[in-house]
């Protein structure tokens, strides 16, 4: 087994190779505005580090969000395109599940909350019973509106760090890691568990506004 895992749903551009037993190579960069530029060079780097080529991959793991849309789509379209060329399956996982799994590796047992930055003063979040067990579907909310629901348990992720008044006890990893996502996927594959389709979890409807001077792209 050779899994290539990518996740661009958060400010992190993260890529990892996993052989079913352990992580062979990983690349983690945090740059919310350059997902499109950084992803393929990261893939190239982890493959070179492991001394492998892309056609050795037997499956692709992708974080499907939730995440701010523009960056999220970079990982998803890359995963789907690789899968189409290589003829291998794509295994979608909730991005928050990757962070929860990494929190477990960092020694947090649960229950806890995972929260990522949804911008516009909101967070994407979910409650976890333990690092492998999410309670319900991920949601997007204003931190103040969920204060009661997340009170009394530690929180994980950059979204929690942004709102200390709601998440006073933040622990574990700040950013998503494809290495954790790949490890979780390897575990789930071995257990015969299901995956999500490689389609985005937007959790918000598109802003249905036509910008002024739409489509005007010529230099003036």
């Amino acid at each position, binding site marked *: 087994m050779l899994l290539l895992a990518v996740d661009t749903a958060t400010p992190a551009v993260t890529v990892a190779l996993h052989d079913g037993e352990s992580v062979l190579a990983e690349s983690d960069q945090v740059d919310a505005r350059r997902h499109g530029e950084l992803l393929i060079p990261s893939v190239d780097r982890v493959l070179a580090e492991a001394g492998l080529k892309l056609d050795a991959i037997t499956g692709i793991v992708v974080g499907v969000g939730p995440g701010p849309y*523009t960056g999220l*789509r970079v990982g998803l379209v*890359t995963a789907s*395109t690789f899968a189409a060329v290589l003829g291998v399956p794509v295994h979608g996982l909730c991005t928050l599940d990757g962070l929860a799994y990494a929190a477990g590796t960092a020694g947090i047992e649960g229950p806890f909350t995972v929260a990522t930055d949804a911008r516009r003063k909101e967070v994407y979040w979910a409650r976890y019973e333990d690092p492998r067990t999410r309670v319900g579907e991920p949601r997007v909310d204003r931190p103040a509106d969920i204060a009661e629901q997340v009170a009394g348990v530690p929180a994980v992720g950059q979204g929690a760090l942004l709102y200390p008044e709601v998440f006073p006890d933040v622990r574990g990893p700040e950013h998503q890691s494809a290495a954790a996502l790949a490890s979780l996927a390897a575990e789930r594959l071995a257990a015969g568990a299901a995956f999500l389709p490689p389609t985005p979890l937007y959790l918000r409807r598109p802003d249905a506004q*036509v910008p002024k001077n739409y*489509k005007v*792209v010529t*230099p003036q």
Partner: protein
Amino acid sequence: MADEPLVLGIETSCDETGVGVVRGTTLLADAIASSVDEHARFGGVVPEVASRAHLEAMVPTIERALKEAGVSARDLDGIAVTAGPGLAGALLVGTSAAKAYAYALGKPLYGVNHLASHICVDQLEHGPLPEPTMALLVSGGHSSLLLAPDITSDVRPLGATIDDAAGEAFDKIARVLQLGFPGGPVIDRLAKEGDPKAINFPRGLTGSRDPAYDFSFSGLKTAVARWIEAKRNAGEEVPVRDVAASFQEAVVDVLTRKAIRACKDEGVDHLMIGGGVAANSRLRSLAQERCDAAGITLRVPRPKLCTDNGAMVAALGAEMVRRNRPASDWDLSADSSLPVTDPHVPGTSHVHSDDHGHGHGHGHDHDHVHELSKDNLYS
């Protein structure tokens, strides 16, 4: 012809997910998935709606294009993609897909300019472009006059709209007349039954002191809207067909007049018209009339190649390969305001960790020139 470059092109700058396959100047496939219906109720293109649709359509459209072309992805000589200008989020889906596709196949990647692609597509219809070519690009996003001595390296803007794009004016007038979105096709159809001389709408920027090659459609749009409003306020019925015909005539009159003048001033005997508005039947017929009178050869591709599509990107990509232009790097950015003077985005790194044989870094950095002659040119 088998030794001509086989290139797949991906276009996602606006609301069409286009994937085309060409061999040299021969069109093999032109697959399109459009999200235009999803935008119709908003009266214009909604960027987030377009980006979501691109993501859904991307891989199926690539596969449809390859099937239609009857070629194997392994035989491609390169992957071309619109790097800009366009909607940032929409471009990002296309460039990401193109990179993944090129990387997985071990093929060179060519990030190309959307506007240059609109010109180059005519090679698929009428053979190699004459050098130089004068091009009038008119669509919902652009209205410009471009002089292209070499479509892969030297495209010079002579003039552009100072406010609305021509296609945008069609959309806005259609909205005032309650004809729906997009406005171009319905106005074209109704205008055929109307009198283009019924109302004398203003011709923007055609005074003797006005810039010779720039366009303005904002004043026309306002004049038409006011005229309609006055009719409605007077309780009279609006003669929709005459308004459509007279408005359309004002637009195409200015467009063709300025394009012919540019040809004459620059001594160019070929005029190419592209972009979605080039599908307009009156623009095509008036351009033909005026080109014939001026001894200029008119080249307008069939309507399906005038609107945004992947074949135009593949056409320019094939020309890049044929002329040995350097490929783009893997960190190619989608640039929503890529200048028209950059027909493509060549890579800057000469040495790659090039163990899977993609053809990068075989060219030189700056083989195209940015200095433009000073007269009539924008920087």
